[in-house]
């Protein structure tokens, strides 16, 4: 991979830092008066998801990371691995480990497209669509006529996620949920 110098650090650029692939979030030039310039760089570690700040001398460089995002549909799990298939018509499949799947494990639904982040052709994270439609498999019976705001109860969805839903929601209904906040949006 190519090396990138601090003045090429832009949001979204993927670089290697301490052995982990990272995505640059923000890059600010800091130059005290007449002296040496530095870059204060915010990076997201793509293995852990954590965002941290590092300082570099301006002109320092980092090795690029062979990272790409690809859209793939979820197929199935065999218990050890979770299998996805490219949506570009190639039918090429990728197996994903539980660690890389992280919290997305509770938002999985067959035939829904996810974004797989690959590093050196290995999946390191899976991002669900912002909104997903899932069926309620378990919740307390709905209260008839109660459509007022305020009350809520837990509901378990077909993917395994548990979300707070209004009291009028019944088992078997399909809901639209925001995967970023884990919040109920509406009936689908």
């Amino acid at each position, binding site marked *: 991979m190519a090396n990138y110098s601090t*003045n090429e650090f832009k949001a979204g650029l993927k670089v290697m830092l301490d052995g982990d692939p990272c995505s640059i979030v923000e*890059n*600010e*030039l*800091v*130059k*005290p*008066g*007449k*002296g*040496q*310039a*530095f870059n*204060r760089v915010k990076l997201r570690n793509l293995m852990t998801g954590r965002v*941290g*700040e*590092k*300082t*570099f*001398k*301006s*002109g320092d460089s980092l090795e690029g990371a062979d990272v790409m995002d690809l859209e793939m549909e979820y197929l199935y799990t065999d218990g050890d691995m979770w299998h996805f298939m490219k949506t570009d018509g190639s039918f090429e499949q990728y197996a994903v480990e539980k660690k890389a799947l992280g919290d997305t494990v509770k938002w999985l639904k067959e035939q829904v497209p996810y974004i797989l982040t690959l590093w050196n052709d290995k999946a390191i994270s899976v991002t669900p669509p912002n909104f997903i439609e899932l069926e309620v498999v378990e919740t307390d019976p709905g209260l008839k006529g109660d459509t007022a705001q305020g009350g809520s109860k837990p509901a378990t969805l077909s993917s395994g996620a548990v979300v707070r839903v209004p009291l009028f929601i019944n088992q078997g209904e399909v809901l639209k949920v925001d995967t970023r906040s884990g919040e109920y949006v509406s009936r689908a």
Partner: protein
Amino acid sequence: MTMNWQPAASMATLRERARLIATVRDFFAARDIWEVETPVLGQGGSTDVHLVSLSTLARTDKGQRKLWLQTSPEFHMKRLLAADSGPIFQLAKSFRDGEVGSRHNIEFTMLEWYRPGFSLAQMVEETTALVEHVLPRSPGPVVHYRYRELFHTHLEVDPFTTSLDVLRSLAAERGSMPAQALSDEGRDTCLDLLMGMVIEPHLGQQELSVVVDYPASQAALAKRHQDADGEWVASRFELYLNGIELANGYDELTNAQEQRQRFDDDNAERRRLGLPEVDVDTQLLAALEQGMPASSGVALGMDRLIQRALGKSRLEEVLAFSTANC
């Protein structure tokens, strides 16, 4: 392909910018400081190790020559001073390669002025008066700090006497760098990092901060003197507003021999670091040789002052076109 041809700033902002520039001209006219225009190109450039100069090739009457784009209008203006111009100011396009960010643009407007016979203290006073004149609201009181005092307050180290090893590990720690990242660096790099990352964000908050008594090694083109503690310091000040450096001022070096030595030292340091050398401005040296009156001078980032006056978070919001879409 869609071209991003539109101005970076809104038309309303650009009109405000024009109005603020007019108030700057009023300020200097009222003080009998006249406006000059000097070339952007020069046969010599800035040797400053921390500045990256742009240059271009031109066919001149002496054949093809490499000419340097100024990093500030300093050298030409000093030649005017040596020719008895008296007090002068200029709004000058200046260029510093690679400087890109929310408060940097490669091409920018420098407001620079010189006052023969002014002490540094008088120059501080005039600079804060100008900033107050341009800003729509008072930035608060003017507060003076010594460089040393700032390091004591914010970092509990002394910039002059704390050991280099301690400065290196402290700078690496505060910059979230690996412990050994600065093991080859000198004192000034460590001090610059600590100043920029730790101290600067505290300066100019609800006040105009003036910093003086920088280490002598950071004198650039300023004279040096011994401070009250007997340390050799630069006869230089910096002005901060909202954590951002707005201006720096010098009691200008007028000694031709010392100036030549500093240029040569810069180029020697450039060779050591593997950086390209910069042609020394021999015409400035000749002017100093002949004699430049004792003067104080200030360079102020005009775009940054406009940015602060209009409350914009990014420099490009006050530029018609930033380098990114020039």
